[in-house]
């Protein structure tokens, strides 16, 4: 998979630099450096899915900036322009802001103008005392749509079964 930085920059409010085929960097008006990109899932869905990550350079507090949200939308739009793209996200639980991050993904999805073309399946997993919020987003016309959704649900069920979580 190779994403086009030209497509991203045609709409992005900040100038985006391409670090590799699927990784990007940009600097905000506040001087915050962000990295955003995808990483092939090595364990659960094989090479059919990519984890999405975003991080500012120092993983520190950054002032609210709606243009960051717009850049992310540009990157995700470019990702979902690919036919067989499946995005996974896991909300980092270690600073106790995982629910906030999960809400941001859901807000992004619900406000995305082309959400009718995509499916979001979001689930929570209990992992050794942490609630880990995860989600999978894929195009509705993905050739493996049914099997990927089923596999994701199986993965969540297995994880919760291991930790003896009873379904609600």
């Amino acid at each position: 998979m190779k994403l086009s930085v030209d497509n991203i920059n045609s709409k992005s409010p900040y100038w985006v630099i391409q670090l590799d085929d699927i990784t990007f960097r940009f600097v905000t008006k506040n001087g915050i450096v962000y990295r955003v990109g995808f990483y092939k899932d090595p364990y659960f869905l094989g090479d059919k899915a990519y984890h999405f990550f975003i991080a500012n350079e120092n993983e520190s507090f950054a002032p609210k900036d709606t243009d960051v949200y717009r850049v992310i939308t540009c990157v995700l739009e470019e990702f979902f322009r690919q036919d067989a793209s499946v995005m996974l996200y896991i909300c980092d639980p270690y600073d106790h802001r995982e629910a906030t991050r999960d809400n941001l993904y859901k807000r992004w999805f619900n406000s995305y103008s082309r959400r009718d073309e995509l499916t979001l399946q979001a689930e929570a997993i209990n992992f050794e005392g942490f609630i880990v919020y995860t989600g999978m987003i894929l195009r509705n016309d993905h050739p493996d749509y049914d099997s990927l959704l089923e596999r994701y649900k199986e993965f969540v069920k297995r994880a919760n079964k291991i930790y003896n979580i009873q379904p609600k």
Partner: protein
Amino acid sequence: MERKDFRQLSDNEFKAALLATLNLKKEWIASVEKREKELGLR
């Protein structure tokens, strides 16, 4: 960890894969920093 279908993993292997998945962001950041150095951005 060798890539295997998660349905074929034992519970311990599954837990290890889950833990590794939770640490993927650190792995990703390390790869990004390496690439930034190669490009002279750091």
